[in-house]
């Protein structure tokens, strides 16, 4: 099997699964319980939080465990906008954000009467700072820009955006770092980030685990009301096993990233070069300033879905654009926003690597893909 859909989800590390099952078995008590078993569960929860905080370079009380990227983005965006609406009603995001961000903004716009600016991107998928400077206003209370684009891998200039936002004291800065974490370094403090979303299953953790960084002093309206867990921002009995497994996955992935980032970059560069050499393939991921794990390309002569099934029959797994929107059969809005042709946007395929994959994957993938393109384009023409 050749699994090349790591931006959709990754295979959990066996060590992470074993932590999950061990914690479920032994430390099943409710961390809020007064008794000794509860106390142990609580201190395990605290230690996990501390580990996540250390890995992110932030304080313990700034880490909220969530169920993943969608929850993190929703809590950050709706929570920040609704808690701060008395300061202003203008909020900014970009057109290439993940649906969990875009839909949150739409809801704020349609249900809560916020004034939303959707920033365009250039042909490389990058948000323009100049445009941001023009659009940001005194009553802007929230800016949400992703770090790494989930479809094409473009890295947004979040540090520069963060610097700009320091000039607007009412504005909070949220970064969706679901695709970037452990792949592209980001200093949350330097980039003046107030809120940052990460998700466990993108770095070999489990689905349903994640965290939101909430900088000290930032007000959020909780999405769930209840028992005051997670600094009163996310009530509900903690998923202790999930949170511990998340902390472990983050540690392991960060350590591996340190060891293997050059291997990954190398694999990425070579794979991209090979793809460019195949007739009929257009590589959509820009040449520069991209994450080392996502390559997006189009084969306009073949329907993307057909190509994916062809590869799938040969045990190679890739996806059309993002997994989250592929079911809707919509054209990639990211690629359209990058001013790509309709045919290109319609036939996009995303290959996403894991940190543990090296050059060995290139040959089998390229061979099968070329064969597939050759065969299918004959038939489909």
């Amino acid at each position, binding site marked *: 099997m050749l699994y090349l859909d790591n931006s959709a989800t990754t295979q959990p590390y066996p060590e992470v699964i074993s*932590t999950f099952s*061990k*914690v479920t078995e032994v430390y099943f008590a409710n961390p809020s319980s*007064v008794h*000794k078993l509860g*106390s142990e569960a*609580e*201190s*395990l929860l605290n*230690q*996990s939080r501390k*580990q996540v905080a250390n890995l992110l370079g932030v304080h313990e*009380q700034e880490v909220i465990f969530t169920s993943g990227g969608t929850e993190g983005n929703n809590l950050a965006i709706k929570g920040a906008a609704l808690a701060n609406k008395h300061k202003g009603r203008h909020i900014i995001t970009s057109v290439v954000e993940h649906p969990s961000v875009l839909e949150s903004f739409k809801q704020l716009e349609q249900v809560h009467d916020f004034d939303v600016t959707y920033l365009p991107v250039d042909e490389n998928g990058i948000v323009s700072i100049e445009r941001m400077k023009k659009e940001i206003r005194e009553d802007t209370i929230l800016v949400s820009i992703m770090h790494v684009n989930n479809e094409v891998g473009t890295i947004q200039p979040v540090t520069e955006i963060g*610097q700009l936002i*320091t*000039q607007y004291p009412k504005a909070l800065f949220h970064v969706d770092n679901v695709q970037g974490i452990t792949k592209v370094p980001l200093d949350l403090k330097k980039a003046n980030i107030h809120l940052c979303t990460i998700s466990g299953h993108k770095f070999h953790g489990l689905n349903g685990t994640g965290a939101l960084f909430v900088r000290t002093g930032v007000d959020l309206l909780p999405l769930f009301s209840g028992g005051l867990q997670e600094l009163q921002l996310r009530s509900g009995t903690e998923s202790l096993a999930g949170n*511990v497994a998340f*902390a*472990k996955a983050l*540690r392991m992935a960060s350590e591996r990233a340190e060891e293997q980032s050059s291997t990954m970059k190398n694999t990425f560069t070579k794979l991209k070069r090979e793809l460019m050499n195949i007739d009929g393939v257009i590589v959509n991921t820009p040449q520069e300033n991209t994450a080392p794990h996502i390559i997006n390309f189009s084969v306009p002569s073949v329907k993307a879905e057909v190509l994916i099934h062809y590869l799938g029959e040969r045990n190679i797994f890739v996806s059309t654009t993002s997994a989250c929107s592929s079911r809707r059969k919509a054209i990639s809005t990211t690629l359209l926003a990058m001013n790509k042709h309709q045919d290109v946007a319609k036939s996009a395929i995303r290959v996403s690597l894991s940190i543990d994959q090296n050059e060995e994957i290139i040959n089998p993938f390229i061979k099968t893909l070329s064969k597939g393109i050759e065969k299918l384009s004959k038939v489909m023409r």
Partner: protein
Amino acid sequence: MKFDHILIRFGEISTKGRNRRKFIDRLKNNVRDVLTDFPNLEYQGTRDRLYIHLHNEDHEVIVERLKNIFGIQSFSLAIKCKSDISEIKEMALKAVNSVFQPYDTFKVTTKRADKQFPLDTNELNYQIGSHVLINTEDLTVDVKNPKINLRVEVRKEATYLTCYDFKGAGGLPVGSGGKAMLLLSGGIDSPVAGFLTLKRGVELEVIHFFSPPYTSERAKQKVIDLARELTAFGGKIKLHIVPFTAIQEKIQEQVPENYTMTSTRRMMLKIADKLREKQQALALITGESLGQVASQTLESMVAINDVTSTPIIRPLITMDKLEIIEISKSIGTHDISIRPYEDCCTIFTPANPKTKPKLEKVSRFESFVDFDELVSQSLNKVETIVITKEQKEKFDNLL
């Protein structure tokens, strides 16, 4: 840009006479202790400065740690270059570039120790300043109140540039003032008292009274966590956990209710003093603040303090609660202190404790029990743990 050394300025040490050497050596050792994980650093102490040669180590982490070390007034990132105007200009630009954030302001302050140098101070200021200004964006000059003050010292052998002053923690180097025992309950006050005593150069050991099942493991963990926060200022700390249940139960049984609190404090002080003697410390430290609770009135203090003639340091004695809370927040102990678990001071609190207890009365109530025997039994069962900054955590195997 890589800075090549950090320049540390002493605070009060500078006023010391013949003991100065001892203070400086102690400070040097303390600095070394918190930077042990940087083996490449080289330390050089002079009469009124301490230099750390970085040898390519990352300055950011080092800066953060230095901020907590008592005995340091201020410190700066510094770099050395040839006394040559074009080289100075280039270094100045690099130095500013590495610290400035958009919209910062700056100025240049030159000292020309080498009077042979062809340019005078004004010209140097002007040339260096304009070079930096031309080659940066979103940086402006403010000679009155700049965010960045680039200091250039032109000497014969070399030129030194420093461009960012960090405020030090002040005070005296921990350990230069002997050792004392801190009574740590888990509340907000006692860690602050510990911090303020550390600041005056005193080394700490910590005593905690543990009364299971009335107080829980969570309360004990709280004290361990508090002690760990204090290690940021004083290196490793010994924590003595004193089993106190039997004594507290005996007091409840023997002493009239409104005097139990007074007796409890007296026993704590007795035990603490014995431990102090054993550990060869010179004083006891408490978080008492005048009038805060019944045990902290002058009358109470007379009755409680009667059990020992050892000096008791009470750094918070005249402070208001809000002032104490503010310090506890700034040293990172507040959030730990407010965890809501019962501790040795909150259990068995009588409804109407005596705010003006009589010494004769409390002595008489206690005279019917051999408390000394109980005290020595409890002392025999003291558990001592050494708290370091990086403690091996319990659940490391799962994480």
